[in-house]
């Protein structure tokens, strides 16, 4: 079924109030003074004497009541730099003024003087001693996954194929930039704005202000897109707005403009992945050695967990008994890289899926055939020892994908076409992959997400979770899950907008976990509500449920009929964080994506002419929303592959506007044909699995494999902009 979005008409009539649409009486405008260099020691802050500073609110690190940090995994990132800066644009000072033009004048009239230190921009370079800024080697996190004895296999292998693959960064370009409003309400600091994770912000505020949680209230406004960009970064904006509001004694609004947003906020981690693979003459993979390097930027932020997901997806969906995956996330003096849809997996999946085509070419095998010989079967184990038992037949999935994309006919036609056409080259490429749904390892167990389901006196049901709707349809899908479980009209289900003073902590809205993990808790909560209302004739549903609910409230006036449900680790799911062995994810979604391309040798432009996205995501809860997730994810992946180039200068994004950072427009996309296979999974509500991130994994390898097919070339880096392709082809001749 496809319930229309519950927030649809508000969004279509201009009624949805995003954070910058809110007017708060007496509100000041806040802004940020940032470091003008990538690394150094703050010597002095110069305030221009031409400005009357008396009516400005000015905040620096000394105004932070608690610990000067943006609390996340580690405590290394200051909320405001005190003595040292580690990246260009690092926040140093905050200003607020009641007039926007005066604020802008103030922001222009302060100069931060810094004694520069040598910055490190190349993550692949060996840092000199003076460039060490984190531990003894600048490594934020190191992960090893070991299976079998790869060294002994390589020692006697007759055929070893190597490849090094690189991916560039990517900017989220959510259409609504970062923004927060903070104000004092009695003893409580209220922060509202554009965020994916209200409870991350709550935790960060309690540490920066050294105050109990009860003294803060964090409220989510409608989000104009997130894609991971509003996972951890909003904590920075929230702390800043709260500091200014407290000092000013008045509300303060901080809205980043587009250029500031693109220059200073997190982006996808750039990567370099090296593969060494031992294969036999039939193309059977005997051993894999994978070495992963992620550029983490200047502070730890989420890099350890992004790396974790990267390493866990590095082998691709292939059977191999002897594996060593080594991953490192390292410091550079770039603004911290962060969460972006896919979270490390798109990088390592690009590498393995490109490498599979490289192996196929080396062996003279069809790339589809090479995959078929190595794809995981039910009962096989991943590198962590986790047994594959989702019931999916990957060989059949790939075969269906190839059929839908008309691969065999196209291969023949393209061969003839490419021989005869003066400047156009056509090719087809594929990628087979998986994406672990929910938090990695014991993450969900640690989160211990809690949801509340309330049965109201008027027969309706209210859902309370911390899940945010950033466009993917959280409110709709949760209402639909409850409606289906109770057999009532989903439009009668109230989904409460996240507000930490009202909703329990059901965890962040990330990691393709909302529909699956939180949705499952909602389903369980609804069932419990039915059990409570069971008067002996079985759990009521539909009209009976509503009648039973109304009866309950008549008999127990004023009763808060609230069911709480918390995440329980599924029996038999084990994970060892130290050895990286066990069940890395509760379940996986699986996919085969295929791309047809046409390369113009005059302009070096790559045009995707057809795209087939076939996936197995468990039961599809809402076809319209699911299709939207896949098409939107593929479009974003296409951008990362062919168009979006983050150009760095002094470690930070130089092309920080949409004029020269190109995201796909309406004319850049081919048909994206979406197909689902549905094998109900026990992990999610009604058999659903995670879906949101999966589609970003496919486009880069499928499209580049198609380009390589078209050109008989071996391209190992993205983005493949026309300039890069021109240089690549020029260099070959």
């Amino acid at each position: 079924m496809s319930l229309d979005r519950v927030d649809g008409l508000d969004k279509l009539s201009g009624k949805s109030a995003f954070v910058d649409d809110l007017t708060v009486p007496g509100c000041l405008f806040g802004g940020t003074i940032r470091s003008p260099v990538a690394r150094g020691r703050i010597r002095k802050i110069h305030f221009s004497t031409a400005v009357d500073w008396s009516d400005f609110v000015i905040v620096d690190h000394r105004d932070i009541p608690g610990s000067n940090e943006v609390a996340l995994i580690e405590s290394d990132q200051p909320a405001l730099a005190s003595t040292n800066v580690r990246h260009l644009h690092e926040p140093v000072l905050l200003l607020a003024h009641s007039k926007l033009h005066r604020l802008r004048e103030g922001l222009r009239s302060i100069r931060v003087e810094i004694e520069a230190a040598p910055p490190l921009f190349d993550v692949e370079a060996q840092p000199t001693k003076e460039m060490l800024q984190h531990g003894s080697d600048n490594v934020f996190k190191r992960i090893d996954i070991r299976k079998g004895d790869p060294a002994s296999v390589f020692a006697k292998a007759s055929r070893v194929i190597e490849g090094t693959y690189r991916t560039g960064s990517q900017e989220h370009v959510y259409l609504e930039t970062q923004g927060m409003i903070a104000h004092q309400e009695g003893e409580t600091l209220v922060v509202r704005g554009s965020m994916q994770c209200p409870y991350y912000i709550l935790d960060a505020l309690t540490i920066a202000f050294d105050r109990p949680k009860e003294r803060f209230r964090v409220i989510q406004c409608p989000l104009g897109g997130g894609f991971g960009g509003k996972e951890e970064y909003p904590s920075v904006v929230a702390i800043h707005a709260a500091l200014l509001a407290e000092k000013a004694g008045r509300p303060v609004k901080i809205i980043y403009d587009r250029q500031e947003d693109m220059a200073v906020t997190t982006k996808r981690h750039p990567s370099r992945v090296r593969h060494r693979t031992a294969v036999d003459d039939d193309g059977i993979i005997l051993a894999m050695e994978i070495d992963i390097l992620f550029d983490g930027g200047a502070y730890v932020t989420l890099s350890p967990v992004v790396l974790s997901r990267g390493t866990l997806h590095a082998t691709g969906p292939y059977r191999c008994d002897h594996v060593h995956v080594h991953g490192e996330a390292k410091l550079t003096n770039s603004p911290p890289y962060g969460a972006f849809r896919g979270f490390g997996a798109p990088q390592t999946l690009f590498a393995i899926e490109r490498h599979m085509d490289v192996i196929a070419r080396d062996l003279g095998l069809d790339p589809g055939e090479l995959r078929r010989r190595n794809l995981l079967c039910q009962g096989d184990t991943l590198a962590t020892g986790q047994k594959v038992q989702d019931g999916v037949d990957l060989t059949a999935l790939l075969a269906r994908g190839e059929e839908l994309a008309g691969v065999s006919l196209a291969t023949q036609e393209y061969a003839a076409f490419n021989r005869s056409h003066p400047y156009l080259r056509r090719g087809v490429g594929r990628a087979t992959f998986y994406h672990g749904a929910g938090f990695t390892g014991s993450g969900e167990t640690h989160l211990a997400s809690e949801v509340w389901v309330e049965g109201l006196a008027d027969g309706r049901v209210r859902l309370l979770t911390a899940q945010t709707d950033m466009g993917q349809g959280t409110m709709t899908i949760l209402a639909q899950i409850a409606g289906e479980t109770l057999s009532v009209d989903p439009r009668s289900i109230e989904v409460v907008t996240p507000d930490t003073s009202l909703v329990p902590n059901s965890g962040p809205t990330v990691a393709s976990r909302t529909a699956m993990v939180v949705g499952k808790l909602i389903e369980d909560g609804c069932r419990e509500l039915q059990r409570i209302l069971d008067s002996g004739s079985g759990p009521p549903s539909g009209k009976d449920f509503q009648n039973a609910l109304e009866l309950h409230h008549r008999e127990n006036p004023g009763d808060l009929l609230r069911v709480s449900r918390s995440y329980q680790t599924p029996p038999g799911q084990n994970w060892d964080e130290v050895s990286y062995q066990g069940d890395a994810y509760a379940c996986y979604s699986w996919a085969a994506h295929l791309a047809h391309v046409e390369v113009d040798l005059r302009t070096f432009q790559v045009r995707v002419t057809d795209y087939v996205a076939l996936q197995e995501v468990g039961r599809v809860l809402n076809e319209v929303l699911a299709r939207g997730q896949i098409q939107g994810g593929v479009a974003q992946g296409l951008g990362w592959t062919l168009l979006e180039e983050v150009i760095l200068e002094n470690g930070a994004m130089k092309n920080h506007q949409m004029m020269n950072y190109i995201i796909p427009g309406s004319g850049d996309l081919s048909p994206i044909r979406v197909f689902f296979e549905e094998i109900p999974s026990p992990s999610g509500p009604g058999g659903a699995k995670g879906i949101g991130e999966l589609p970003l994994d496919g486009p880069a390898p499928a499209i580049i494999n198609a380009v390589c097919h078209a050109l008989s070339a071996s391209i190992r880096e993205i983005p493949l902009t026309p300039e890069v392709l021109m240089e690549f082809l020029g260099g070959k001749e």
Partner: protein
Amino acid sequence: MTTPQATVRRKVQRTFTVNGDVEEVSFLPHKTLLEVLREDMHLTGTKHGCELGECGTCTVLMNGEPVLSCLVLGLACEGADIETVEGMAGPDGPHPLQKTFASIGAAQCGYCTPGFLLTAKALVEWNSNPDRETLKEELSGVLCRCTGYLQIFQAVEEACVEIRGEGETK
């Protein structure tokens, strides 16, 4: 060098039609139409994505033509007929485009949506049977990061069926 005291900011008054109502609006003369709509008329349905004329999010109709309200001065609107997303629904309910955008999933986060709705409205008023290539071209001034555009194209095509009056015969 500017001293804040040196600048005296005086509002100007202009008359233009917004969503069918003739309005006298006072605003600072440097303001863009986007700022006048959002700040002086509290019509916040029109969003801003870059304020540099790059993203198309702030598109409104001026005398029936799509314009980037971040690049039009409020002063230039004297006597003009402005239409924003708040004025799209008619007395009989939502515009056909609003209905199909809802049912086909063309609005995800909804932030670029007003820009698309108005651009599409201008298009379907002169061509209620656009082909895909026309749609791609005509909507290319507005960026969307959520949908991949396909559901937007579909929603416009579907709305055109109703606009052409073919809805009932199906």
